[in-house]
């Protein structure tokens, strides 16, 4: 870990100003991914701004019946919130499927969205990785890629976004609220928040340098059955091979987002339309452009089968 200077921010404005004045700044909240990466010198900030004193840790109803979740609400608290449990069960389920109790006690809403990939080549600084070192090449495409992406991938990167929470947010059409370094407030639909890798896999979100996430807004509850099915080798404390987040109504319509397959939470609205026809047609649309490797080709079949089980569970 490289040496850095440290400050505790007391207001969002001072945090933003400080971020603008230091060339290589990171905000730190839970720290569960950032410090992990700093120890390996994958992240090398020279200045850390501790934002834990900024509040932003409440969950409040919005005027239109939705929910505003503060950026610093801990994953445990969000999953345990009564309203979330009752009206956004998918979100609770997704959060509880992730990480461990200890990590969820620290990890925040904003930090969870900004998690970086768990691709093993990204994590090993001896290996070429376009995400870590643009232009160095992708070791994963021809390497060990069992965990990695099958859709929306590029020749530069096949990494996946590791968040479970983000899958739920994508299915729920959440909006990410930010403050730009110049103080302007901004709202980004979750669909646009994460980017596909393309030729610039090191640019993972649409956030500008110093832009600060203040919270996430959920639209009014959708009703229906909320199901999050995470598939993994061991029963807990593991990243998803694939996961399916779904809200399915009693008439069989609904929406689905899939994790463990792409550089962002993967949802194709046209696949939602096909959902009432069943898992096979919906998956065919969802993964129409899949480009799996030999190691992860099984994920296509796995998504379809898991979605089938999810649809059956919603009916049951």
């Amino acid at each position, binding site marked *: 870990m490289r040496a850095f200077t440290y400050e505790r921010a007391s207001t969002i404005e001072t945090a933003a100003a400080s971020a603008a004045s230091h060339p290589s700044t990171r905000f730190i909240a839970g720290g569960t991914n950032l410090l992990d990466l700093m120890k390996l010198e994958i992240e090398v900030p020279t200045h850390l701004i501790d934002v834990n004193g900024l509040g932003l840790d409440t969950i409040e109803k919005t005027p239109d019946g939705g929910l505003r979740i503060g950026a610093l609400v801990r994953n445990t608290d969000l999953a345990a919130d009564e309203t979330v449990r009752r009206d956004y069960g998918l979100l609770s389920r997704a959060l509880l499927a992730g990480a461990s109790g200890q990590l969820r006690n620290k990890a925040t809403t904003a930090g969870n969205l900004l998690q970086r990939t768990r691709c093993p*080549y990204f994590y090993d600084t001896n290996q070429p990785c376009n995400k870590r070192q643009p232009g160095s090449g992708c070791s994963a495409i*021809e*390497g060990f890629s069992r965990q990695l992406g099958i859709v929306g991938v590029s020749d530069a990167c096949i990494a996946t976004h590791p968040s479970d929470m983000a899958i739920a947010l994508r299915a729920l059409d959440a909006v990410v609220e930010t403050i730009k370094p110049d103080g302007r407030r901004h709202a980004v639909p979750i669909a646009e928040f994460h980017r596909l890798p393309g030729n610039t896999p090191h640019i993972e979100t649409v956030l500008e340098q110093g832009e600060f996430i203040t919270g996430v807004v959920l639209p009014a509850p959708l009703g229906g059955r909320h199901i999050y099915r995470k598939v993994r*080798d*061991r029963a807990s404390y*593991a990243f998803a091979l694939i996961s399916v987040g779904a809200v399915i109504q009693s008439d069989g319509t609904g929406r689905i987002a899939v994790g463990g397959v792409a550089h962002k939470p993967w949802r194709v609205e046209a696949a939602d339309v096909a959902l009432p026809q069943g*898992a096979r047609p919906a998956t065919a649309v969802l993964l129409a452009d899949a480009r799996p490797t030999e190691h992860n080709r*099984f994920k296509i079949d*796995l998504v379809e089968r898991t979605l089938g*089980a999810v649809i059956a569970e919603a009916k049951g």
Partner: protein
Amino acid sequence: MKFDTPATTNPIDQMKVVGKPIPRIDGDLKVTGRAKYAYEWHDASTPYAYGYPVGASIARGRIRSMDIAAAEKAPGVLAVVTTLAVGERKKGKFNTAKLFGGDEVQHYHQAIAVVVAENFEQARAAAALVKVDYAEEKGAFDLKEAMKTAEKPADSQQPDTSVGDFDATFGSAAITLDEAYSTPDQSHAMMEPNASIAAWDGDNVTVWTSSQMIDWWRADLATTLDIDKEKIHLMSPFIGGGFGGKLFLRSDAVLAVLGAQAAKRPVKVALPRPFMINNTTHRPATIQRIRIGAERDGKITAIAHESWSGDQPGGQLEAAVAQTRLLYAGANRMTAMRLATLNLPEGNAMRAPGEAPGLMALEIAMDEMAEKLGLDPIEFRILNDTQVDPEKPERPFSHRNLIGCLKLGAETFGWSSRGKPGARREGNWLIGQGVAVAFRNNMMLPSGARVRLDRQGIATVETDMTDIGTGSYTIIAQTAAEMLGLPMDRVAVQLGDSRFPVSAGSGGQFGANSSTSGVYAACVKLREAVAAKLGFNSDDVVFENGEVRSGNRSVPLTEAVGDEGLVGEDTMTWGDLTQTHQQSTFGAHFVEVGVDVATGESRVRRMLAVCAAGRILNPITARSQVIGAMTMGVGGALSEELAVDTRRGFFVNHDLAGYEVAVHADIPHQDVIFMDETDPMSSPMKAKGVGELGLCGVSAAIANAIYNASGVRVRHYPLTLDKLIGNLPDVA
């Protein structure tokens, strides 16, 4: 004392303390965080410095040059020791790849420098500043490719065995099986990383480390550093798990000693977790072929087991065929093993080396063969039990009750409820049961101990034996208490110190039986000394309730030993009873699994092990060893695999997120039954080991249960869902 005739009645047979379920005597220290592990030795007056290792970033080649200027100038840095500056070193007797020294890179993350600084953060940051110029060379990293040019190793590794005419018998057998199996590279992944502190005092050095084998480490450290073994004091009283990963000297100790020398300060070095997997050793992958021929009545007439594994040049076989030479009857048999050269990190012993991967294959094959024969898999195994070494029928097993394990297990587990493959379903779960046999040979190593009895009536046992979680502290105290007629709270045990008599150490499930036998021998010496001092006839002397008795004379031990106290020291050595009698441990594993019909995820629902391993010295610690091994077997069956990057030659998933060992949620309640038996051929303790037995066969039992649940036969570990879903019923 030499154990060369079967044990007769001795004080251990009283079983007043030995054999009792006594909680660990080191338990309070461990549950309160007071047990000090290697990196934790602290003296307030000592200015420890921190060493951080640098590993090679290539798999094979030479180091042209290293630029350490930036690292040396970094804040807090006290010294940078490089492999080039240190130069070629002699290698320890037990190491295959070198640990440090010279310009040759033999594997990924081989240690090439240690950076020593005032604090940990400074050392780690400076280590990242070391720049290396390599001349990279091509290497062999893919066992499937390398097996084509694999060679027959030296006869000492017993690569080939043959009895009768396998080919002819197999060719004419009524029912045959000929299948290939594979097991992946596996990592010990013990919770405490390899760690050492070294402190020099003149030309003497003290090393606190995490070692299973004190004397092996001490000798190999002396060799590697070219110093006198007597000048090395090694301490390892608490070890955070080993599983074979701490059998042999590792780089942390070498780097700490050299770093301390360079920095002129005591230095602490722990291997960072992401560095451990490629820097240290692992269980090598195997590719196996098994052929079994039987008559229609189920009697095996021909059995062959071949295995291919790889290692660094000069390395060893993974002896995956070992158990097949002894486990089942059959007049015509052969085994063969071939060794490929691989430039991956060093392959070496991990819990039940040989038998663990061997039984992963053999016990699937037996399940398959039973099905071909239309026999229950337990019945098939019972039918082919043998009470003699099948290669040398004149050589009997010392004691073998495998059939008892299978029968008792079947009854306890409810084996009769097992249905046909794919027949039982509960909701989304396909339910199945599987069985496999556990088998592991009983080994003994010489083991010494010293027992002091003082004026207060406290016996203190000193031996360089280690407790890696196995319960050595407790069973050694039980042994001394039994031998001296003392209660447990009058016995102190000190372990893991090179100033104590050399013991067997912890490995190969020889530790418990060997080390307690050493304590037995030392106690016999002490008893003789007490008797001699009192002028008692040592033949009829009885040690009981803190007293020593002979005829109608009785003296309290506190009085008997006098003000100076008395000491008994001895080493147990072993005669040829393991040659005249095949000594092994046996067991049967029963498993019930659920396979998710949609996703192919397999989860273990029930587990039972029945073990026959001689006298159980402490049913609490023995049971823990077995459930722990069963847990490791679950990981081995379902998730553990070091993924090899065959282009760049390293294990890719080199941390505890990528290498998935079992977690709490993977493990159901586990049951263990020990057969009530003794083995007088084994030792005066009449005990054998269980620590490795518990692992043997577990993964195969799970594989067989998955087959019974799903109807899908997988012969390549781990049995991850991608190997199942293509053959599971349609769900859409």
